[in-house]
């Protein structure tokens, strides 16, 4: 058994490492994002840790922490730029990032060793480090998936409408689906109003609160489409009537008993 481990410990290390990486992809797949930036982020961490340990004389622990931080910071910066993209465009943008990192690493000979790489790297990573890392990653992923954030992630994965930032654009699309020439200005107004509808939906159907993101947003889309039609044919008053909002008090809406609720109460209901 020990012989087997000695013979194949490189393969085992690689399996453990790739498993930990796979969880990084899994978290993003959990919100319908297919990222190919993992390789680029890994390369950043790897080159930084080598530079710190071999050139600057840092110990293993601090260099590992620094690599973790640089990977997180780079992912945050990349995410800030490309999270406005969806689907294949997001995937390609992350691939572009990885390729840029790869090409820079290939050509920055003084820091990365170019195509030949860096020789004589001290082997400080043990198999048990990787096994422990994998256990921690599995626990972290499990904890995140069970948390409130995990619930939201599942809601976003099952229905992207729960992503509030896209609601406005969806409203314009809903208008198109209902055969209405719905320009952005109308979309903004209806989209803004539809947020109230969403609040109203939650207020009127408290049983849906646990699934409010998904159910509320779906209901909102249906209403927003009809609302866009009304807005087009009957003006603001028409859409306001359908939405249950008061045209004179756009912040308010009506509850199930058709009583108008002022804007400040709406926030409480939401």
């Amino acid at each position: 058994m020990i012989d087997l481990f000695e013979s194949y410990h490189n393969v085992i290390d690689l399996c453990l490492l790739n498993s930990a990486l796979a969880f990084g992809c899994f978290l993003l797949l959990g919100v319908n994002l297919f990222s190919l930036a993992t390789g680029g982020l890994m390369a950043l961490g790897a080159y930084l840790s080598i530079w710190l340990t071999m050139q600057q004389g840092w110990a293993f622990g601090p260099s590992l922490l620094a690599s973790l931080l640089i990977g997180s910071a780079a992912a945050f910066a990349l995410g800030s730029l490309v999270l406005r993209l969806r689907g294949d465009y997001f995937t390609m943008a992350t691939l572009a990032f990885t390729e840029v990192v790869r090409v820079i690493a290939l050509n920055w000979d003084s820091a990365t060793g170019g195509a030949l790489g860096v020789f004589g790297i001290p082997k400080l990573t043990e198999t048990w480090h990787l096994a422990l890392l994998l256990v921690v990653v599995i626990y972290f992923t499990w904890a995140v998936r069970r948390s409130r954030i995990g619930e939201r992630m599942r809601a976003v994965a099952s229905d992207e409408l729960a992503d509030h930032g896209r609601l406005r654009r969806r409203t314009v699309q809903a208008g198109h689906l209902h055969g209405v020439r719905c320009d952005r200005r109308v979309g903004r107004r209806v989209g803004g109003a539809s947020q109230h509808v969403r609040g109203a939906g939650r207020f009127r159907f408290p049983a849906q609160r646990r699934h409010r993101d998904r159910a509320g947003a779906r209901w909102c889309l249906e209403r927003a489409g009809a609302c866009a039609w009304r807005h087009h044919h009957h003006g603001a008053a028409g859409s306001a009537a359908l939405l249950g909002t008061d045209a004179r008090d756009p912040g308010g809406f009506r509850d199930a008993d058709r009583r108008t609720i002022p804007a400040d109460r709406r926030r409480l209901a939401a």
Partner: protein
Amino acid sequence: MLLQQLVNGLSLGAVYAVFSLGFTLVFGVMNVLNLAQGAVFMWGAYVGLEVVGRLALPLPLAILAAAVAAGFLGVLSELIVFRPLQRRGAHRWMGMVGSLALARILIGIAQEVFGTQVVRYPDNALAGASLDLFGARLQLLQVVSIGAALAMVLALTLLLRLTNLGRAIRTIAFSEMVGRLVGIPVDRVRIATFFVSGALAGGAGVLWSLLFQSVSPFMGDSILLKGLTVLILGGLGNVAGALVGGLLLGLVEVGSIVAVGSGYRDAVGFGLVLLILIVRPTGLFATLETKRA
């Protein structure tokens, strides 16, 4: 000098454009990326090489044979990857991963059959001929590449606009369910689409090998990434966008070689993609998704 670089960029971009046309056609119809396209491109180059080298047939015949063989490989990817997965209700990403696996298999077979060494096409009249124009020395092959790319785009546009097959492809691209409702044989049209897509990749493979005088089992990997770049630049599922995106990428790459050296050529290309996506999140041109919406 400028004219020389312009022609270099356009001929490089023309190959990118032809390759990406097949990519974008499949994406437009099935909404999936066929990542085996790079391997199909490589097999097209090898088939062309065998026809010219072993059989000693003329180059146009080699391009034709490469296109047909690559077309059948494209059909193969539909039959053994995409169709079974779709029938089992798999997520579209599974198709991407499955096609990537097929690509590795095709590359492995090519390694066994042709070896891993880089080989080149035998000397021929087309590759050797050149002409002087306003002080620039242009290879006849470069001009032929640009002309072939334009001809293929024109042929594809006419196919999509004027023929029954094209109408069927566009209907299925809009909605497969609508296609079935109006009686289009969806499976056959999809096979035809994959054949055209593979044939374009095969033709591009021969053009690329002639331009750069190198054929290897791994030549499809880099062009696959370039094809994806062009797809994003031009807008997913947009045929005209693929042409403009391909030519633009070729010009940018040649410009970057002049400006910062060949080492950073790919970084400039992919940096451009990042920049364009940040400024215009759906590519430079209107996309299928936008049109559908």
